[in-house]
């Protein structure tokens, strides 16, 4: 019996292949966009985990110097005092294929069981030490290191962008004398209080974990996830439409089956089984598409993460079975969500329920009111999150609530607008047109809701990106005050550089900094030279009248917006820096693109408090003159390699390229979401086309040609798309405000001003009209070519 019923149910799809295609396509696209984003996130997180394991010594505590490196003598003293520690040198190696992080390790003292120790054992100690040492690296990293003198051993399990070497090899390659940190082996150690006397100037750091990097990049991944979710939701609109229509079209069949003795429970179970089959097929297709999307986007994401956060992510995908399972799971879950209402209705379907195949397209006023009520609830939840919420989750509740409320309210708003148009209509054809459009609205509402979401997301994200771009470029223009940036290999040559540039430049600004802990988090402390150019160019968000004179005299500090917002700091508050230096805050400055806190103090105070800082970076002012001759002189006459200099224009271009890459991913997702929405319109119109005949045939019989009817269908789609677009503008701007003022603030710590870009809206409006026009072209053409016999049959058949 089960096979008989199933064959009857499945026979519907054989007769309606386009509907089946719609269902599979919608679900596949939804799954693809979701699982593609998940694949990117998973790949990035896996890389963070590997990197943190290796860099953080596999969860071991470390001894680090308060400033600079740990001298070899201090290490020796600690070992003699009974400290079981292992030295590490940490630096960057330039290969032909770019920078690679190099860790120098002592294979004899490294605690057993750590990821690095295991990697060395895997490679073989004799090969690791070798005659001139060897580098261990992941295969992709090994390729980037090719061309050097040191031999390279490829190890697949190592984190990407990282190389391991014997401590002596690393010291030679990086030209180091001391150590960056000492790994503390597990087990009993001497009393920590004796540390200061045994080796002054060092302290114990707790174990680092993947969380540190994860925390920095979480907001980026959250943004991607939110986009994936939005695309998934838009895809589900298609699935919901296709399933809802299929259920309504088969309503007479369900009724007949019930009348012929099939129980409601069996019918629902078989329908669920049928949907499960489709979900698994579409899920598998979606996962394959998702893989392609992820492979397409991952290099861009990897570049962004590397550029902004310094997080190295492999640019190629390796997919875990769990990802496949979760992709199929989300497809099944999505299908269940999209078909829950339909299945519930079938479960409650009485054998004598009226067979109304067009009920799907004839939503009642009550249903619309219910939807409006739900919209109000979503809006209330969004407002509650705005007023009472805190953190990123509240931000996303606000975002989701706003979008859902707008989408749910759309049919009612459109119905009201169409009713208004109907009242102003002149002549019977116009009146019929508006009335018929209103009648069609419920059938098209899901597709239009999907279009609204896609357009609003486009406007919102577009406004955010463009506002960010405008602010960021303005900020870069102000902030990059020097025309040329120079890095010395030998800090001792600093005074010579200043003397060399005395007649060749209008000023030299040392750019020295130290990394340290401020208010419990990582931060950079920069020193600024006493030069009026800072006061003229640095954008300050909050300040005292005499801010710069107080900073320059060493009486106050500036903090970046991130640090100020994170710890609710404002001018006048005291701030304690490493070494116990406490200064009042004199101002807050914008610092876009920097995920961590930053403090600016007088250069003299920086060098006096932290004498061991690296004095190698300088900004050179040329008064606007071309930097090329100066660069040439610095290379030829002073011996600074070309690679140690970067001019303002190149730095700006580099910063902007990072910016562009960051938003390239969201741009692609935006376009894909709009494409899915366009597809939703096409599928809705195509599936509605056959159900529209009983409504159109009488109009045809009354004197309209089929071509006229086709044109009217086209105009109708364009009008509905145009109205939806107009309504999407305020929703998109609301979304942009949430992204700029709430999400960005929570995720990155900075707030951006919002700018409006009406030209972009016009372009988007034309694009949505083109999408709707294209989507309706085929159904309209089919209607215009419909054989009269098909239309006559409407009158001949009792349906």
């Amino acid at each position: 019996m089960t096979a008989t019923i199933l064959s009857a149910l499945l026979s519907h799809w054989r007769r309606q292949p386009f509907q089946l295609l719609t269902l599979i396509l919608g679900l596949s696209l939804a799954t693809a966009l979701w699982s593609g984003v998940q694949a990117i996130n998973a790949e990035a997180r896996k890389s963070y985990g590997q990197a943190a394991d290796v860099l953080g010594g596999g969860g071991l505590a470390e001894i680090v110097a308060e400033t600079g490196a740990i001298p070899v003598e201090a290490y020796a003293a600690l070992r003699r005092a009974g400290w079981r520690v292992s030295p590490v040198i940490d630096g960057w190696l330039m290969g032909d294929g770019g920078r690679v992080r190099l860790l120098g390790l002592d294979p004899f003292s490294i605690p057993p069981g750590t990821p690095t120790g295991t990697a060395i054992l895997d490679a073989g100690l004799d090969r690791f030490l070798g005659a001139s040492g060897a580098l261990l690296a992941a295969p992709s990293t090994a390729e980037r290191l090719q061309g050097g003198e040191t031999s390279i051993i490829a190890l697949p399990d190592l984190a990407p962008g990282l190389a391991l070497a014997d401590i002596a090899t690393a010291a030679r390659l990086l030209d180091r004398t001391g150590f960056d940190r000492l790994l503390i082996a597990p087990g009993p150690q001497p009393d920590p209080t004796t540390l200061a006397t045994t080796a002054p100037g060092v302290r114990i750091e707790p174990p680092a974990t993947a969380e540190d990097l994860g925390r920095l990049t979480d907001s980026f991944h959250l943004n991607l996830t939110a986009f994936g979710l939005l695309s998934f939701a838009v895809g589900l609109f298609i699935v919901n439409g296709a399933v809802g229509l299929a259920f309504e079209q088969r309503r007479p069949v369900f009724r007949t089956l019930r009348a012929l003795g099939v129980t409601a429970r069996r019918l629902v179970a078989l329908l669920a089984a049928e949907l499960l089959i489709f979900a698994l097929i579409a899920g598998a297709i979606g996962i394959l598409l998702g893989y392609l999307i992820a492979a397409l986007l991952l290099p861009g994401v990897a570049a962004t993460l590397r550029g902004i956060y310094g997080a190295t992510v492999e640019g190629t995908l390796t997919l875990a079975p769990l990802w496949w399972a979760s992709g199929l799971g989300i497809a099944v879950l999505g299908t269940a969500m999209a078909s829950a209402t339909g299945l519930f209705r079938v479960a409650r379907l009485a054998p004598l329920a009226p067979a109304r195949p067009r009920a799907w397209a004839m939503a009642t006023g009550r249903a619309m009111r219910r939807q409006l009520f739900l919209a109000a609830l979503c809006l209330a939840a969004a407002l509650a999150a705005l007023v009472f919420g805190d953190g990123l989750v509240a931000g996303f509740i606000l975002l989701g609530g706003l979008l859902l409320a707008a989408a749910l309210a759309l049919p009612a708003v459109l119905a009201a607008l169409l009713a208004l148009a109907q009242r102003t209509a002149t002549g019977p054809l116009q009146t019929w047109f508006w009335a018929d459009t209103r009648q069609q609205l419920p059938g098209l509402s899901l597709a239009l809701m999907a279009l609204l979401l896609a357009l609003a997301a486009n406007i919102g994200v577009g406004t955010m990106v463009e506002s960010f771009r405008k602010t960021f470029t303005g900020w870069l223009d102000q902030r990059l005050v020097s025309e040329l940036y120079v890095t010395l290999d030998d800090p001792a040559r600093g005074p010579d550089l200043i003397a060399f540039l005395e007649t060749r430049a209008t000023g030299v600004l040392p750019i020295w900094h130290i990394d340290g802990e401020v208010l419990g988090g990582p931060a950079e402390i920069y020193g600024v030279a006493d030069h009026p150019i800072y006061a003229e160019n640095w954008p300050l968000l909050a300040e005292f009248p005499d801010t710069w004179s107080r900073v320059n005299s060493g009486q106050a500090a500036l903090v970046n917006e991130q640090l100020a917002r994170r710890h609710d700091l404002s001018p006048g508050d005291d701030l304690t820096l490493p070494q116990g230096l406490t200064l009042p805050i004199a101002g807050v400055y914008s610092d876009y693109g920097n995920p961590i806190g930053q403090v600016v103090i007088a250069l003299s105070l920086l060098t006096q408090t932290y004498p061991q800082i690296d004095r190698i970076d300088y900004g050179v002012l040329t008064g606007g003159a071309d930097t090329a001759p100066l660069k040439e002189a610095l290379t030829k006459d002073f011996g600074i390699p070309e690679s140690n200099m970067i001019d303002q224009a190149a730095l700006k271009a580099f910063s902007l390229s990072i910016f562009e890459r960051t938003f390239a991913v969201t741009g692609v997702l935006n376009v894909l979401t709009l494409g899915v929405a366009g597809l939703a319109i096409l599928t809705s119109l195509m599936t509605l086309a056959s159900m529209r005949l009983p409504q159109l045939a009488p109009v045809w019989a009354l004197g309209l040609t089929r071509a006229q009817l086709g044109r009217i269908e086209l105009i109708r789609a364009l009008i509905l798309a145009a109205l939806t677009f107009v309504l999407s503008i305020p929703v998109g701007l609301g979304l942009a405000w949430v992204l700029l003022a709430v999400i960005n603030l929570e995720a990155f710590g900075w707030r951006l001003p919002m700018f409006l870009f009406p030209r972009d809206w016009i372009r988007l409006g034309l694009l949505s009209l083109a999408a709707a026009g294209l989507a309706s072209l085929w159904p309209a053409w089919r209607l215009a070519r419909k054989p009269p016999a098909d239309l006559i049959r409407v009158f001949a058949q009792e349906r």
Partner: protein
Amino acid sequence: MLLDVRSLTKRFPGAEAPVTVLDGVSLTLDRGEALALTGESGSGKSTLLHIVAGLEPADGGQVVRDGTDILGLGDAERATLRRTQIGIVFQQFNLIPSLNVGRNLSFQSELAGRADAHRHQALAETLGLREHLAKYPEELSGGQQQRVAIGRAVAGGPNLILADEPTGNLDETTGDRVFDLLLSLARDEDRALLIVTHSERLAARADRRLHLSHGRIQT
């Protein structure tokens, strides 16, 4: 006796007060007997048929079939009864549009686990549908569709056939043919037939006829 309907009552909610559609209806039906039920629109004929088919509950009375009151059965048991013991013919045919004529014809017998290819072939022959087996319902005329519906109802070998206005959508000639077909299929295999019709002319050809008016049997 195959069917014994006793004091059947059915009310539907009305605008002000419940409307009594069946008011103590009683009737009996023997094997091999064809009973025609006539009455004006809204007299309760279809409701009576639906209750006997187990498609609709009643507010009072009994429908005893082979010694069992079907009103006391649960949904699943009533479904089993419809699947295996009752053949229903609807005015709107209610064929499955996505299945071809052959599959529609054998559909209920397959549900009942009594599919018999030879019997289906013979039925198709009897019903004049042999050359239409590969077609879909929408390709058939109303009379042909109703013949498929009759074939579906009898293919599983039920002992009770319930027909609700089976000729209501057909012209007189086609209606006559369909009615004859129903009568012959019922009589030939000793089945009971309860047929609801508006047509006094057709009703006169049944073994017995009852007239329903305002929910009561008129004698």
